[in-house]
């Protein structure tokens, strides 16, 4: 199951596994937004299982952050796979993917 939800320390935790690309984008979008709706006030997104990520994956992560902020929920990333790390390095996105830190949107 590429998207797995669980609870940890009382908050919702989302685990993304495998590809996170245009091949999954259309399918993932509603699911990811649904996870945000379901979260109480904190959502942990674990990207350590992401094997591949492209622009669509990045866009969906950015969208999730924005939606979470709009719903006054805290979203943070925990666990970063090499593929995601390479993306962060490429685009200097350390701020966006800062784990456990207070959230700062891109803009």
């Amino acid at each position, binding site marked *: 199951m590429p998207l797995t939800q669980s609870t940890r320390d009382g908050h919702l935790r989302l685990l993304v596994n495998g590809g996170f690309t*245009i091949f999954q*984008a*259309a399918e*993932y*979008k509603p699911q990811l*937004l649904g996870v945000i709706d379901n979260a109480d006030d904190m959502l942990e997104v674990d990207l350590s299982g992401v094997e591949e990520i*492209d*622009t*669509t994956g*990045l*866009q*969906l992560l*950015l*969208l999730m952050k*924005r*939606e979470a902020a709009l719903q006054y929920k805290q979203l943070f990333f925990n666990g970063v796979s090499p593929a995601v790390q390479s*993306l962060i390095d*490429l*685009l*200097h*996105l350390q701020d966006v993917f800062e784990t456990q830190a207070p959230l700062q949107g*891109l*803009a």
Partner: protein
Amino acid sequence: MKKDAARDALVQEARELLVAMEAALLQIESDGPSKDSINAIFRAAHTIKGSAGLFAFDSIVSFTHVLESVLDRVRNGILRLDDAMLSLLLNCGDYMGDLVDAIAQSREDQEPDRERRTMLEAALNTHLEQVAVVSAQVVDTTGLTEMVAAVTAAAEASVVHTQQAACDDGVANPYWHLSLRFNPDVLRDGLDPLSFLRYLLTMGRSVYVLTLDSMPTADEMDPELCYLGFEIGFDSEADLEAIESVFEFVREDSDITVLSPHSSLAQYRQWIERLPASEHEQVVRLMLQSGALSDAEWQLLKRPHGADPLVAGSNAAAMPPVLRSASFELAPHAMPVNGSAPRQKSGDDKKGLEQKFIKIEVSKLDQLIDLVGELVIAGAGASLVAKRKKDQRFEEATQLISGLVEQIRDAALTLRMVQINEVFQRFPRVVRDMSREMGKEIELIVTGAETELDKSMVEKISDPLMHIVRNAMDHGIEAADIRRAVGKPETGVLRLNATHESGSVVIEVFDDGRGLDKEKIVRKATQQGLISADANLSDKEIFRLIFEPGFTTAEQVTSLSGRGVGMDVVKRNIDSLHGEVDIFSNPGMGTMVRIRLPLTLAIIAGFQVVVGGAVFVIPLDLVVECINLSAHQVHENIVTLRGEPLPFIPLRELFDLPQRESPRKSLVIVQYGQMRAGLLVDNLLGECQAVIKPLGKLFSKVKGLSGSTILGDGRVALILDVPHLITHTGEMEQVGIRRSETRVEFGERM
């Protein structure tokens, strides 16, 4: 084999693009520059370069690259699209056509014309150098946008440019700045912007990266569209070409700006002004925070255009002294330009008219049509069986099937139909070039360009039409002073028209020139021994003489026509298409050449008749009506029909078929063009679909038959060549049966 197919595709695509490019250039010439047409030109050059690059056709790539650089500057309004530039671009397009031809003939390793190429490249490079000089000079607030204005308005603008002092050494930023906005569809095209960035970073190091997203609300966001844009500071030794080439594949529909290290403020300004307002602040903050622009540079940059000179003066205190004095001097000159300067719009939809076509190999299409042909024959066979069985339900079923088969046939045939515009679109250029060469003013009016005809015919009619048009311009339309002397408007008119008319396509080329000189034609023809001196010829017959091989009336041979080759070739080409050509001319008023072609060469709706036991097929489009001969007055081979005489041909006698008893004789009345005639037959069988099978070589000389077809019961039926038969009656009956329709009609057109 595979490579050949790809090569063909490349050649075809390139040719289509060159045609589009030429059309856009000519449109600019007539209607003035528009963003759409400039983009179309750029896109054409860019795509050709891209595809040629895939095959490593370096000759065309390197040539197109220079052209593209010039076009890019034209597109950005830095270079003006004036008459000289248009001519240069047209010439470059021609040369690209030569290069493409070389590829088509697998001779891409040879340069078609090295001298011409060198000349063109030199001309293009001159434009590029000019730009370099100008943009180095431009510094103050009245920078590049005025150059944009220069495209539309402005000798005065250029005065401003030349007066601008050269005092911009560029900004301090030692890094490249890349501003990337991708076409939203880029992901669906299978391209990932991130992979371009990864590739880019193999050439250097990113200093700063800003990711901008323009995502709409979560509901509206389409996860498969690209909403991200990037601003990247890039530290690299690579040159501009190398960096731009990274984005080669996406450049077309995306907005890619590459600013070199130490670019001028004007270039930065131009770029920043094109940013959407929503991103403006963010990008500026990035530029300042990252040190790409210093505060002082930004202060200079952000002053609005068209600033009141007094305001500019008061702001000037914050500026370095050198710049201040420059802007004081310049402001007054810049003022009038600013008022009328249209700003370059940003974020324009760059998607032009996308062609919604798929390419199919012609042979596949032919195969399909062949199959449909077989289906038609088999269907006819089935109907025949059904009729003989006298099984009503079977008959109904076969009728339904034959209805569908008919639709399939029509649909399959229309696949082969293309608009005659494919031929016509070449003429604006021809007319433009020739009228310049001859110093005549000629206006081209094209009507009916959407008329469709068979693809194979479009190809074959192109050269004959070109001959006719050239003739019309050279011999027909007079020079301006002669026209003025005879009281005609100085601008000559050349008209191309195409229409459908009773199963055929009619193409007319009309000019309002001096008309054909009948006496001169007769005199020349007599001199050349084509006719005897005492021959008494009708107008039509005289005009037809110009189709004789070797005939020319031109007193002097020009480079364009008059060598006596041409019109006979025209006639031969049209004959080979089963078409015919006629000339109408009024002295001093003009000439019209009318070409009539059959619609298609593959399958026709036919009308079956029986003569002496043999079945013949008449193309249904040409059949007007059927009458019972015994009910009408007959004299020799003329029947009086509703008070009008009509010649007819007894087919049985013509083909020498055995006499068969038949209770009554029927007359099928056919019309071709303006002429009618009757065909006397024994029996009428009714409509059928005839798949035309060519007659063998042995029968190629047989007149009156145009082909054969296979009937449902497997018998062979011959297809009558109605046009030829009608002409035959005309020759038999010299008396005034043919009404003067043709002359009257032409008179109206004048």
